[in-house]
């Protein structure tokens, strides 16, 4: 059957270069700036080149490209038959990661499963399975989607991983599920009144979390955020820590709180200084001082805050290049969703594009204080195997949808 389609598509290009070009450009930028961000670290100076962080990233790129190529090898429609199985498998992994002994904790969050050789983050792969499952679920005939029962089932698919990832806790990754689910439902043709309800619920949820964190005393909080998450939100909303001090706090305690607020807003302050001091042309690759002198913390400069390094060293010109490359990527993806042969393909493309977009927007946003600091990586640029492989896998599937698109 697939052979027949190939014949029909013969005169059409087999691959969408408008996807492939920005992907490769972003990978090159990623490798260069991860090199720049890590090259001056004393701890890495005696490490051979093949164990350097930038080289590991290149290895992840190769793995990711392999996975993407593999994802193109089979028709997405045949893959989608397994989607529910993937989904429940991921749910299982997300449960496992919460169990101490299996999931390993870093910075107070249980997000990684240690496989000895490397660690991976199930929440990253869960996003792929989730988009697949939801696309599969929503690709039923349009008239079935009108029934509330189907809608709530779909909602269930969204809420389940959301809650599990919240429990890790990984608020940022969990919140990404909301726009992705919403966009897919919109694209699937779910009646607007349902979506309005969904938006209302989502907005209420976010508002509740915020109200809880910002206005209720700590003992009353029914959503148990980790302390650092709460403080990140307080910093984001510019709340004065001293307002949350007990009424009988001594001057010394107040001073400690102020000091703490200063420390907590340190990362974002330094990220802004990095970005802003880049100016138009930047300081040149490897010449950024914020990262080299350690003002931008070493632990985050090559992953969550890689954009600050890029913006400092290549300036407005460089950060615009990144923005433009992502924009080309997103619109090429959306175009593919139009060309998709069926509703499944359309939903897959929309789901993955919105997922990538949410990551890009939140990550760059937190580098310039538009968004609160969450541990969301910048697709293809941040260091990290799970993130790189999942992003490339998602793009591979979009490419797959393009390969098996409808032709006239």
């Amino acid at each position, binding site marked *: 059957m697939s052979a027949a389609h190939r014949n029909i598509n013969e005169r059409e290009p087999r691959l969408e270069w408008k996807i492939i070009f920005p992907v490769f450009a972003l990978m090159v930028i990623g490798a260069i700036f991860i090199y720049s961000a890590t090259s001056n670290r004393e701890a890495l100076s005696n490490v051979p080149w093949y164990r350097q962080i930038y080289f590991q990233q290149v290895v992840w790129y190769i793995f990711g490209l392999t996975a993407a190529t593999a994802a193109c090898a089979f028709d997405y429609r045949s893959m989608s038959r397994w989607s529910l199985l993937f989904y429940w498998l991921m749910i299982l992994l997300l449960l496992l990661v919460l169990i101490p002994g299996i999931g390993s904790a870093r910075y107070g969050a249980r997000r990684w499963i240690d496989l000895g050789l490397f660690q991976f983050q199930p929440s990253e792969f869960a996003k792929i399975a989730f988009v697949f499952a939801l696309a599969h679920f929503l690709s039923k005939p349009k008239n079935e989607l009108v029934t509330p029962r189907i809608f709530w089932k779909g909602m269930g698919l969204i809420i389940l991983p959301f809650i599990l990832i919240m429990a890790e806790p990984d608020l940022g990754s969990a919140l990404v599920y909301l726009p992705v689910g919403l966009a897919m439902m919109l694209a699937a043709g779910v009646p607007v009144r349902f979506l309005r309800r969904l938006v209302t619920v989502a907005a209420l949820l976010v508002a509740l979390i915020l109200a809880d964190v910002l206005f209720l005393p700590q003992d009353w909080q029914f959503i148990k955020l980790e302390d650092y998450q709460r403080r990140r939100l307080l910093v984001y909303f510019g709340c004065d820590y001293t307002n949350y001090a007990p009424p009988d706090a001594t001057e010394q305690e107040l001073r400690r709180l102020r000091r703490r607020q200063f420390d907590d807003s340190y990362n974002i302050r330094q990220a802004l200084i990095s970005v*802003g001091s880049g100016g138009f042309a930047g300081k040149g690759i490897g010449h950024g001082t914020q990262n080299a*002198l350690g003002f931008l913390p070493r632990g985050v400069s090559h992953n969550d805050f890689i954009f600050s390094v890029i913006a400092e060293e290549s300036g407005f010109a460089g950060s615009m290049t990144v923005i433009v490359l992502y924009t080309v990527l997103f619109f090429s993806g959306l175009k593919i969703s139009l060309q998709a042969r069926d509703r499944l393909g359309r939903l897959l493309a929309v789901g993955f594009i919105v997922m990538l977009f949410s990551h890009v927007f939140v990550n760059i946003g937190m580098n310039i204080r538009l968004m609160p600091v969450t541990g969301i990586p910048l697709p293809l640029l941040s260091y990290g195997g799970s993130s790189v492989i999942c992003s490339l896998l998602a793009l591979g599937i979009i490419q797959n949808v393009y390969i098996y698109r409808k032709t006239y």
Partner: protein
Amino acid sequence: MLIFDQLKKSDRPLRILSGIILLCMVLLAALLWYIQIATSKKYVKSLQIQSYRTVPVASIRGKILDKNGTPLADSRPSYNIVLTLEDIRESFHEQYRRLRSLKRRNADAFNGESLGPLARYLAVSNIVSELSGIIQRPLTLDREEFHRHYTQKPALPVTLAEDLSFKELALFKEYPQKPAGVSLQIQPMRVYPFNAFAAHSIGYVRVQKNPEPSDLTDFNYALTELRGVSGIEGAFNDVLHGRPGAKSILVNNLGYRQSESTWMESIPGKNIYLTIDARIQKTAEEALASVAGNIKGAVVVMDPRNGDLLAVVSMPEFDPGIFTPTLSSKEWEELNDPDRRPAFNRATAGAYAPGSIYKIIVSLAGLDSGAIDPDENFENPGFIRVGRRTISDTAPPGIYDFRRAFKLSSNTYFIHFGLETGLDKLIEISSQLLLGRRTGIPVMQESSGNLPTPKWKNNTYGLPWTNGDTANLCIGQGPITVTPLQMAVMTSAIANGGKVFAPRIVQRVSKQGFPSQPPAELKPGELRGTLDVNPGAYSIIRRAMLADVEDSDGTGRHAAVDGMRICGKTGTAQVKRGGRLVRYDTWFVSFAPLESPRYVVVVLVEGGASGGTTCAPVAGRIYEEILKIESGTQAPIEPYYVRK
């Protein structure tokens, strides 16, 4: 554009989605433009504030030299051993780990003391004790001080040992395995090659901990620098000081130094050449010191042709080197001894009753007004009655002409003719000779003395001026006070025929390091005025002064020197406190040689026996040495260069 064309004709949901995505990406782009272009300066500024420390670079202080180029104040390199903190961060960590494991075993041992500062202190004091062994000097590290340095200026090196001796320097340099982070730092240090020598003219510097903020740049850390507070060091501080340079130290997030760059070179201070001749100065100091052990007095040697000061001596003296780096309490006590007052410049700021040397001014006034006829014989009964007061004369009764009255310093003669001349004329001449006024010598210590007038007396005591006051003035007693410097100006005017020079001490200012360049600034001797006196009067007074020295009965005969015709006048002023005589301030003013006067020597001794016996020999000795210097037989002087 292709993308949008296709989206337009297609379904609404995707149009909404792509609209939202486009909007968000444009929002990001706009914000990036705002941060990186529109308000970039603000962030660049924050970056500089947090990662650069601006530090001044000390400039080398200019020298002070005598007229022949002998250095009187110089800068020498001082070697300090310093420790760069960023180089020993590893040992900080090591000590910390060691302490932490100790604490695990025995938590009470530290009494809740935080380990970080303790670890740093231990790491540095290990280095200090190692260094102690290397240079064989006991060294200590003040814990508080180190902690303060670490928290306030970790980017700057810590000084472990100051001002190494040559031996210590050699030991340090030859030691094969120096502790990590330790290096030599060279700092310019003020040195006075002759120690206590011309100290009141040269002045001294002090270490200034918090220099005034420079208008050139804001420094994060002010380095200690030297600031002249007295003498030429003080008055010409800005010229000698030069301009400090500036360097920026790039620091990391912990405040440790990463690299530094000097963006403004320091400009060394200019050298100042004095009119002082070190050989004459030395002679004058030795001559005055030889009078008595604990002498208090002053000598001024001046060139009457141009007002150049060749020597300015004030005793007792001090060593200007003791002020740096710090004054010990014993040294402070000595400096502030209320009786000796070593820091007090008696030559320029000491106001004394002139006694008989004021008779020179009475002579000038009398001869000019015609009241005194030099050949007229005057009968001196041995006393004079002024109003109801009788003033006795130290000169014996008899017949006096001007010359005899002058050389025997007859009070009766000068009071008689002084009264005849009139107060106005006396005050006019005195005032033209700068009495009661500052000469403007830039040594930061000068007194104007006091020239009493009827107006002054009325203002001060509310009493009218009487003939008795004029009589007192004629013999240089009472409220009149003068400085040795003013007397040198007066004597010069007699020697040069009426030219009143403002004394000059700075000959020229030149640039450091460029001796071949012409002097930057030449300050000619300033003529402050010319006496309006009949020229014949000068030669009459000169002859009388010559007689005072050369005649066997002259009061100044002890100043006589073979080979030089010296003209002089002695003075012995009574110092009374509460109507009781406490001491005599004795004077000898002189110039030589008679034919073409080139030297004026003024000697003052507090509490001397008399001008003739105490001061005239001092002047004589100085003239003797001057003769040797002029004939080239005097040995050149060498700096003592004593290193502590």
